Structures are given as C-alpha cells and as structure tokens.
C-alpha cells in the first residue's frame, strides 16, 4: 500500500516535472505581434512609449479635427517585444499603419527590408522648416522614410540652485568644467549623474568624451572607418576613467534615471548631485519632479575637452514611420503630412513640451530656446547619438563593456579590444 502511494506520488511529481520543461517553447509564441489594424477611419499607431499615451491621443484627435485620420494606439510596454513585433510583421499586411522607430542603423534595417514608406514629398513640402541634418537622419539612398517624432539635442542639465550656492557658472571650456567638477566634489556634491540601470545609459559618457576630444574620430568610428583601439578612443576612455576615479560620478549601480526610491531625480532635485548629460527629452521628467526649467535647473552644451576642434553636439531623433505594407498607406501619409505641418507640430510640442524640430514653432522650455540659440551661434555640427549611429550588434556588446568600465575603471584596452572584436565581425558582414 505504501509502495502504491509512493508510486502515485512519483507519477504525479513526474508529470509535474515533465510539464515544467515546456515553457522554453514559449520562445516561438513570443515572436507574434500585437493587434490587427483597424478600419480606415482610425489609423493604427504602434509604439513602445506607453508614457506618451495622452500625447498621442491629443495629437490623434487634433489630426482628426484637421480633416485627417485619427490614431488608434497599440502600445507595447516592453521595447524588445515591440521591436520583435514590428520586425516580424513589417513585411505583412498585419503591420500597423504608423509606428515609432529609431533612426540610424536600426532604421536602415527596416528601410532595406522595404517596411517603411517613402515620404520624401512631405519633407520637400516642409523643407524650409526643418534642418537638413535632421532630414539626413531618416534619409537612405536619397529617399526619406519618416517624420521626426521627437528631436533631442544632448545637453548637460544642471541644478541652478547648487550652482548659485557655490557661485558656479555653466562652463564654456574645459578649464571651466574642471573648476566646476572640483568645486562640487569639494563641497560634497556629486558632480555628474551616471547609471548602468537599463543598460543603455552606459554609452552616455563614452560618446560625450569622445565627441568632446575628437568628434571626427567618433564619426569615423560609428561608420567602421576607425577602430575602438585607436589612440584617440583610448585617450577619451582614459579621461573618462580619471574622472570616475576622482569621484565625479554617482555610483552607476545605485541610481536609475527612472522613477522609484533610487532615482537620480531625487539626488538632483535635493542638490546631492548637480549635473546630468542626457537628451533634452529628459527635461519634462525633471519638471514633473517639481523643478522649474530655467529657474531650478538649466542646461549647457558639454564643453570641448581639447582646443581647436569642431564644436559638435549629439542629437537624437526618432521617426514616426508609415508602413509600406500598411492597409491604409495613403491615409497614413496624409496624417504624417499633417503631423509635420506647422499646425501639427504646434499641437505636438504643446502636448509634449519637447524641443521643437521646426524652426517656426517655438520650444516651450527656456532651456531649449537657449540651447537652440547656442547651437546656431556656435556653429555646432549635429552628430547622431551612439545608439543609432552605429550597427546595433556593436552597440549591444559595447554597452555591456562600458558598464564594466564604469564599475571597474582601469586599463580600457581589454574593453576596447572586446568591442573591436565584435565590430570586426559585424562590419565584415556589412561591407
């Protein structure tokens, strides 16, 4: 009787164990996309920007009021799942009419695959209102494939009250910057925010220091025409490492740029950390935390660390794309045309408080207004952000290596060699 009981228990346990081996097969099921396109009256707009929901809804309603189609949102909380959905549905008619994407190499993939509709005519119509450099981000083989959903120059945001307290001014050159860093550190304030949370922020200071020391090398490196082991890259990494060792950065393993108890925002708003290098799109997040732009916090362009180099600023812009295979392609192009128009951008910038990409639509933030004026006055060349500027396979490897460097700053060469090894294999398949 006891044996029978044991056997029964074992059989039940065995069944449970075998059943437990099944979930890895979910890999296959996970590749399927989201919802299906709706009727022509409402264009399906897919995105991974769930916190932008209200803004999209307002813009969609404004689009409808202006005689174009409204937008029906299809949102993905997880970026990876979203990308997988678009990648696997982009060639079919199940693709949404409109979708948000990334510029650079990530965009090149979907353009080469024929997933994005040519919207060059919309840019031709609005050519006087947008910077050519911005259009270039979405242009491949002479055709343009998306409209700028957001435009974010990368700046150094700083706590004005902390700067005022220690009689500091936004630095205009590297000597000024060193003075700011040393003063803040001596007063017990962590000068710069840094994190590896979410992985991607690990590239921020790599691109910052390389652009600040050798922007031409950065451009060549992004295009596979230079190596990560080149002396100029090593020099930028050494500068970064020196500043980490000097204690000028927050503990990258402790703070996050998001919300929660360990967010950088708390450190920044309470004056324990003074600066952060990030896209201007982060300003509304700081504003929501109770700080007023231009009053409580300001921004400046990170100064060059070497003299005699071209003024350069990192910019980031993601496109809103019309699906080439979408069920309502013509309506979607019309709607995108309205989105790019002055009326469309006025509504969008009003909703989001983003930096305006259109020259005839003012940015609401005084920080952005000053930034755009400084860019123009200083003749700054616009350089695409690291995330978009180089093939994503290299980025994925590099951000993990940069995170390693942030946690264990030392000889950068082993890290750079690891990235270069990946870069060599990736470029070999592209060239």
């Amino acid at each position, binding site marked *: 009787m006891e044996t029978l009981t044991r056997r029964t228990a*074992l059989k039940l346990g*065995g069944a449970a164990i075998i059943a437990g081996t099944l979930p*890895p097969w979910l890999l296959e099921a996970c590749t399927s996309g989201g919802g299906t396109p709706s009727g022509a009256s409402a264009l399906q707009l897919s995105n991974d920007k769930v916190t932008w929901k209200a803004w999209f809804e307002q813009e969609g309603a404004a689009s409808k009021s202006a005689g174009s189609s409204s937008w029906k949102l299809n949102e993905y909380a997880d970026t990876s799942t979203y990308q997988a959905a678009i990648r696997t549905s982009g060639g079919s008619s199940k693709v949404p009419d409109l979708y948000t994407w990334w510029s650079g190499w990530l965009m090149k993939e979907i353009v080469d*695959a024929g997933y994005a509709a040519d919207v060059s005519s919309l840019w031709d119509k609005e050519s006087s209102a947008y910077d050519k450099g911005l259009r270039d981000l979405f242009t491949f083989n002479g055709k343009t494939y998306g409209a700028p959903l957001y435009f974010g120059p990368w700046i150094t945001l700083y706590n004005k009250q902390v700067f005022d307290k220690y009689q500091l001014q936004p630095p205009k050159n590297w000597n000024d910057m060193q003075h700011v860093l040393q003063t803040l550190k001596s007063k017990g304030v962590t000068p710069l925010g840094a994190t590896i949370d979410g992985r991607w922020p690990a590239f921020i200071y790599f691109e910052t220091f390389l652009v600040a020391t050798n922007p031409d090398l950065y451009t060549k490196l992004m295009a596979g025409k230079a190596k990560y082991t080149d002396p100029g890259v090593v020099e930028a990494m050494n500068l970064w490492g020196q500043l980490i060792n000097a204690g000028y950065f927050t*503990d990258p*393993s402790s703070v996050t740029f998001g919300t929660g108890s360990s967010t950088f925002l708390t450190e920044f708003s309470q004056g324990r950390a003074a600066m952060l290098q990030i896209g201007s799109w982060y300003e509304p997040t700081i504003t929501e935390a109770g700080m007023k732009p231009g009053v409580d916090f300001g921004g400046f362009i990170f100064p060059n660390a070497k003299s005699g180099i071209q003024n350069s600023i990192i910019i980031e812009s993601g496109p809103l794309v019309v699906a080439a295979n979408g069920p309502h392609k013509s309506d979607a192009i019309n709607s995108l045309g309205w989105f790019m128009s002055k009326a469309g951008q006025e509504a969008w910038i009003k909703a989001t408080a983003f930096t305006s990409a259109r020259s005839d639509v003012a940015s609401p933030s005084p920080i952005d207004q000053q930034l755009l004026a400084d860019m123009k006055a200083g003749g700054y060349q616009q350089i695409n952000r690291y995330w978009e500027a180089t093939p994503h396979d290299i980025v994925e490897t590099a951000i993990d290596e940069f995170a390693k460097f942030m946690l264990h700053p030392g000889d950068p060469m082993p890290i750079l060699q690891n990235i270069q090894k990946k870069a060599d294999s990736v470029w070999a398949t592209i060239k």
Partner: protein
Amino acid sequence: MASDAKPRKAKAGKAAAPEGTEVAEASRPFGRLAAAAAPYLYVTPMVLLVGVFLLYPAADTMWLSLTKWNGIYPPTFIGFDNYLNLWTDPVFITASLNTVYWVAGVMLLQTALGLALAVLLNTSPLAELYKRILYLPAAISGAAIGVIWYAIFNNQFGILNASLRFVGLGALTQAWLTTPPLNTFSMIVAAVWQGLGPTIILFLVGLQTIPRDPIEAAQTDGANAWQVFRYVTLPLLRPITVVVVGINLINSFKVFDIIWTMTQGGPYRSSETLAVTMFRDSFVSFEFGYGASVAMVLTVVTFAVAVFYIRAIFQRLEVQ
C-alpha cells in the same frame, strides 16, 4: 489481452440487449464506427492543442536554431554553426555556470529551509498564522518580488546595506547586485523567499499524512527527537520530497522574471542564466537563430535532468 476482451464484451452486450437490437446495430455500421472512434475524438482537442502550441513551435524552434535570422530577412540555413559558437561564447559559459548555481542553490536552500520550517510549524500552535505569512510571497508575481528585493539589495539606497551601516557593520556592505557571482547568489535568496511558501505547504501535507504508529514506536524504543526525524520522519517523507525537489529543480532552470527585474542579467551579462541569455539573444540582440540554439540546449538539459531524476527515483524504489 485486448483481443480476449472484445468478444467477451460483445457477448455480454448481446445477452443484455433487448430483442431486435442486434438487427438494429447490424444495420448501423456507422454506429459501431463512431463508438470505435469516440475515444480518439475525446483526445483530439488536446492532441491539437499540444500539436499547435507545443510540438509545432518546438519543431520550428529546432529548425530556427539551425539558421541565422534577424527577424526581418528570411532565415539563412547555417547548419550547426550556432551550436558550435555556443561553446566558445563567454556569455553562454557564464550563463551555464549561473544556471548551475541557480539549480543547486534553489534546490538545496528551498528544500532544506522548507523542510525545516515545515517541521517547526507542524507542532507550532501558531502554524496557521505562520503558514499564511510564509505563503504570501508566493502569491506575488516574480516581477514584483524582483522590485522588492532590488530595493533591499541596492548598493547605495538598499535596506540591507543601510541596516548594516546602522548597526556598525559597514565593513560588511557589498555591491550585492553588481558583483558577480554575488549578484546571482543575492537573486537566489529572493527566489527562495518567494518559493518557500509552497514548499512548506507540501512538506506540511506530507508530515500530516505520516502515521503516528512508527513515530510512537521509535519514541518507545528511546529514540530522541533528532533520531525520530532522521530515521522515521524523513524516510516517510520521501515521496513528497521527490515531488518538491523535482518542482524546485525545474523552476530553477526556468527562472527569468526575478533576474530580469533585478539586474536584467547584468552588469555586463554577468548574472544571466540560460533562460535570460535565450531571451536577450532572441529579443534584444535579434539573433533569433542563436537564441533558439540556447533554447534547445536549455530544453534538452532540463528534460534530461528531469528524466534522469525520475528514472533514478523509480529504480531506487524498485530496489527497495
């Protein structure tokens, strides 16, 4: 055996059938066909479900693992290249080692702690209260567990390091989530905390079904509490222990949500397990073929361990 049963069954049916039924059955060949097909019809829905949601994806994943596919262009057949590359990939090797840590850690800690607490609770007057408290984490999602324990283990703002500093043990503070392999061990603690409740309940069920006679006999013979536990209770708990260990074994192979919410497998992919590596390669790096090869390895290893475990247990019982 089956051929013997059929005529007997038919004969019995014939004897019991009313007059005229035989003629009616003979005139309804489809009725007999339907009766014969009925069992297959009953299992058809499950066969279809398993086929569509398990066998087909499994076969497709197997095929995918032999290709290079970024999700956009058609997959390119590359034979066993993905599998060959696995063995020289430091991330895969680290993930494999971490998976071993997880399996050993969860299996040993959860089983041992679960058993110890179940034994304590079995005689405690507050057992009902403690059971509810200890089971609570199991009712929380893995993602929420990850968030909770992230707040505990955070280097600068975490409760653990703050507590250590508060009681004057600042020298013991650690970068719990960013120092490998300490980050893996930290997450194992979180997983054990979540899984402890069901393990305790299973052991309590086992303890409550043990007959009193052998325990009383051992006590009468002068066995102390430890001897009773070691030589009477523990052997009688073997069936439930087998189930508990088996479930913990499989769960530790599959763990994903806690890791993803606490470290995302980082920093620098140092805390990935095979399940996380599979996800990252597939859905973050978009190397679906390579990710599928990791999935295949994980599945084969999990299946092999499970089968080996069950066979070993059965063989042991047969010997007994």
